[in-house]
C-alpha cells in the first residue's frame, strides 16, 4: 500500500463517526432543558481531546494541563471585562495566548520523561495556580473574576438561561478543533508522534526530530486547551481560580483514561460518560456520589482495559 493510500484510508469517515456527530445534535430536540450541561460536556470533551494529543498520541503524561485551560479562560474573561465582549475574537486571542504559554513551557517539558515529567507538569500547574491567587488584583483571586459580560454571538444569539447559544457555540468549536486534530493525527507528523510515544530513543535514528515534534504538538494541545477554557469563561461569564486547579487537571486525566487514550474519540466519550454519570449520581445522592463514581472507574478498569474505547476495540477488531 502506498503511503498516500494509507493516509487516505485512515482519514475516511466511518459510519459510526458520522452517527456520533449527528447524535450530538439530539440534545436540542430531546433534552432542551439539559443544554447547559451539554455545553459543559462539550467544553470538557474539547479539553480532554487536547490532552489526548499529548498523552494518547505523544506519550506525554501531564498532571498540569489545566494551566493552559486556565490561561485561556482568564484571557477570555479579562478581555471581556476590560476590552471588548465579542466572543469569537476573544476565543482566538485566548487560544493564541495559551498556545504561546504552551510553546514556552514545552521547551522544559520535552526534555523529561517518566515520573519527572509528570511531576514537572504538576509543579508548573500548581505554581501558575498560586501566581493567579497572588495576582488577585488582576484575576479577582479566590472570589473569581467579576464583571465578565459577553456580547451576543454575531450580535444576534444571546447567551441566555436556556443554553441554546452556549451549546451550539461550544459544539461548533469542538467540531472544528476535532477536525484539526484528526488531520494532525492522520498525517506523517501524527505518525511520527506515535513513533515517539512507542520508542523515543529510536526516532532520531530514522530522522524524526522528536523534540521539535513534541514541542509542536504540545503547543497545539495548549492552544486547544486554551480555547476550551475560553469557551467556559464565555458561556458561563465566570472565571475562578478553580480553572487552574490540580483538581481540573486530575479530572480531565481521569476522563481521558476512562474513555481510552490515543483513540481520538476517547476524550469525547469519557467526558460524556463521566459528566452525565456525575450529574445523575450527585442528583440522586449529593453527599456520597463519589462512591458510585469510584465504583464506575474501578469496574471499567477491571472489565475494559485501556479505557472504554480500548476495551471495546477488543470486541470490534479494526480491519486493517
Amino acid at each position, binding site marked *: 500500500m502506498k503511503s498516500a493510500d494509507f493516509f487516505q484510508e485512515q482519514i475516511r469517515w466511518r459510519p459510526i463517526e458520522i452517527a456520533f456527530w449527528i447524535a450530538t445534535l439530539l440534545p436540542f430536540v430531546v433534552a432542551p*432543558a*439539559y443544554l*447547559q*450541561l451539554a455545553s*459543559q460536556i462539550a467544553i470538557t470533551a474539547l479539553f480532554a481531546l487536547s490532552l489526548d494529543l499529548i498523552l494518547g498520541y505523544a506519550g506525554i503524561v501531564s498532571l498540569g494541563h489545566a494551566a493552559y485551560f486556565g490561561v485561556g479562560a482568564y484571557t477570555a474573561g479579562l478581555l471581556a471585562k476590560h476590552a471588548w465582549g465579542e466572543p469569537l475574537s476573544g476565543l482566538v486571542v485566548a487560544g493564541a495566548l495559551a498556545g504561546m504559554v504552551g510553546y514556552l513551557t514545552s521547551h522544559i517539558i520535552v526534555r523529561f520523561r517518566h515520573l519527572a515529567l509528570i511531576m514537572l507538569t504538576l509543579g508548573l500547574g500548581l505554581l501558575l495556580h*498560586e501566581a493567579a*491567587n*497572588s495576582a*488577585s488584583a488582576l484575576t479577582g*483571586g*479566590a*472570589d*473569581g473574576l*467579576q464583571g465578565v459580560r459577553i456580547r451576543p454571538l454575531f450580535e444576534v444569539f444571546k447567551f*441566555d*438561561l*436556556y*443554553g441554546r447559544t452556549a451549546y451550539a457555540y461550544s459544539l461548533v468549536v469542538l467540531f472544528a478543533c476535532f477536525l484539526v486534530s484528526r488531520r494532525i493525527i492522520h498525517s506523517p507528523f501524527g505518525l511520527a508522534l506515535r513513533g515517539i510515544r512507542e520508542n523515543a530513543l529510536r526516532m532520531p535514528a530514522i530522522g524524526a526530530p522528536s523534540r521539535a515534534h513534541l514541542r509542536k504538538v504540545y503547543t497545539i494541545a495548549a492552544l486547544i486547551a486554551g480555547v476550551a477554557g475560553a469557551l*467556559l469563561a464565555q458561556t*458561563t*461569564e*465566570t472565571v*475562578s*481560580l*478553580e480553572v487552574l486547579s490540580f*483538581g481540573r487537571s486530575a479530572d480531565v486525566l481521569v476522563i481521558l483514561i476512562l474513555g481510552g487514550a490515543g483513540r481520538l474519540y476517547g476524550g469525547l466519550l469519557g467526558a460524556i460518560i463521566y459528566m452525565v454519570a456525575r450529574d445523575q449520581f*450527585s*442528583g440522586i445522592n*449529593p*453527599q*456520597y*456520589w*463519589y462512591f458510585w463514581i469510584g465504583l464506575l472507574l474501578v469496574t471499567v478498569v477491571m472489565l475494559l482495559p485501556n479505557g472504554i474505547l480500548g476495551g471495546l476495540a477488543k470486541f470490534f477488531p479494526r480491519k486493517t
Partner: protein
Amino acid sequence: MLSLVMLAGSASAQQTVRIGLIMPYSGQFADTATQMDNAIKLYVKQNGDTVAGHKLEFIRKDTGGIAPDVAKRLAQELVVRDKVDVLAGFVLTPNALAAADVSAEARKFMVVMNAATSIITTKSPYMARTSLTTPQLNETFGAWAASKGGLKKVYTMVSDYGPGHDAEQAFQRGFKQAGGEVIGAVRFPVANPDFAAFVQRAKDQSPEGIYAWVPGGAQPAALGKALAERGIDPKRTRILGQGELTEEEARKSMGDTAIGIITAYHYDASHDSKLNRDFVKAFNDAYGRNPNIYSIGGWDGMHLIYAVLKASGGKTDGEALIGAAKGMQWESPRGPVSIDPETRDIVQTVYIRRVEKVGGELKNVEFDKVENVKDPVKARMPK
C-alpha cells in the same frame, strides 16, 4: 367577587413552592453543607412543610466545592428545568456570585445562607442574605479591640486569599480608626499545613496582641496548637480571631491552651437565650452535635423564606418575595436580626467572646457585644 377570590385562593393552595438548595455537599467543604442542611431539615420538621397554603418542595444540588461554572449551571437548571421559586444555600462566595446572575436574569428570590463577602448582595436585586459579612464582624472587632478591648498594638496574620484579605483589611481599618497601631502583618498560604514558621515570626515581634484569621476546618486547631507550642500564652499576649478560631472541634483539639482567646462572632451554641437553648437541644436530639454558624445561616434563611411567603399574600415571584424581605425583623436563636431594606443584607449583633472553662468544658463566653451592626463596606459605597 368573593367566590372568585376564594377560587383563586384554593387554586394557589395546590401550588407547590420549590426551593433549590445549592451547596457543596461533597468535597472539602462538605461539613458546612451538612450543618446547614441539618438546620434546614430541622426547621421544616418543626414548622411543617406547608406555608401560606403552599406546600414546600426541596431540590438539592451539589457543587462539589468552589465551582462557579457548576453553581451557575445548577442554578440555571433549577430555574429552567425544575421551575424553582427560590434559590437558596450558597456556602462559598464564587458560587454565590455566579448564581446571582441567574437570580437577576430570571428574577428569582435568592437567599444566601453563608457566603460572607460584602459585594455579593449587590449582584442581584432579588437576593437577601441571612448569614454575615466578613467586614461586619471584623471591622467591628477591630474597633472594639482598640477601644474597649484596650489593645494598642497588634500583629495580624491571615490566610492569603479573598476572605482572608477581606478580614485583614476590615480588622486593620476598624483598629486603626479607633486609634490602634498595626505593628506587622503576614499572610499564610491558603493550603497551609504547618503554621510554626509564621507563628515564630509573630513571636519575634513580641506583640501585645495577635489577630489571626483562618478558614474553618483543620486550620484553627493547627494554628491554636502552633501558638501554644511556641509558648504564646493567651493570658499574656492577647490572641484575637474570628469565631472559627475557637469553634467546637478546634477547642477540643487545642484543649486548655485555648483558654483566654478572644473572638468575635455572630453566633455560638452556648448563647444564653431560651430560643437558642431550645434550638440547640432540638438540633442535638436530631443530629447528635451542636449547631454552628452554617446551621444558623440555614435556620434563619428558612425563617426568612417562610416569613416572606406568608407576608407576600401567596405570591411567589421574585419581586413580591424580596419586597416582603426588605425590613423584615425577627428574633433568631443568635439574637435579634433584621434584613436591611437598602442592601438586603443582614443586620445583627456582633458578640465578643472569650474561651473559658465552664463546668469542666471549654466554651466561648460572651462578655461584650455590639448591636445592630450593618455591613460597613456597603454602607460606605456611594448610593
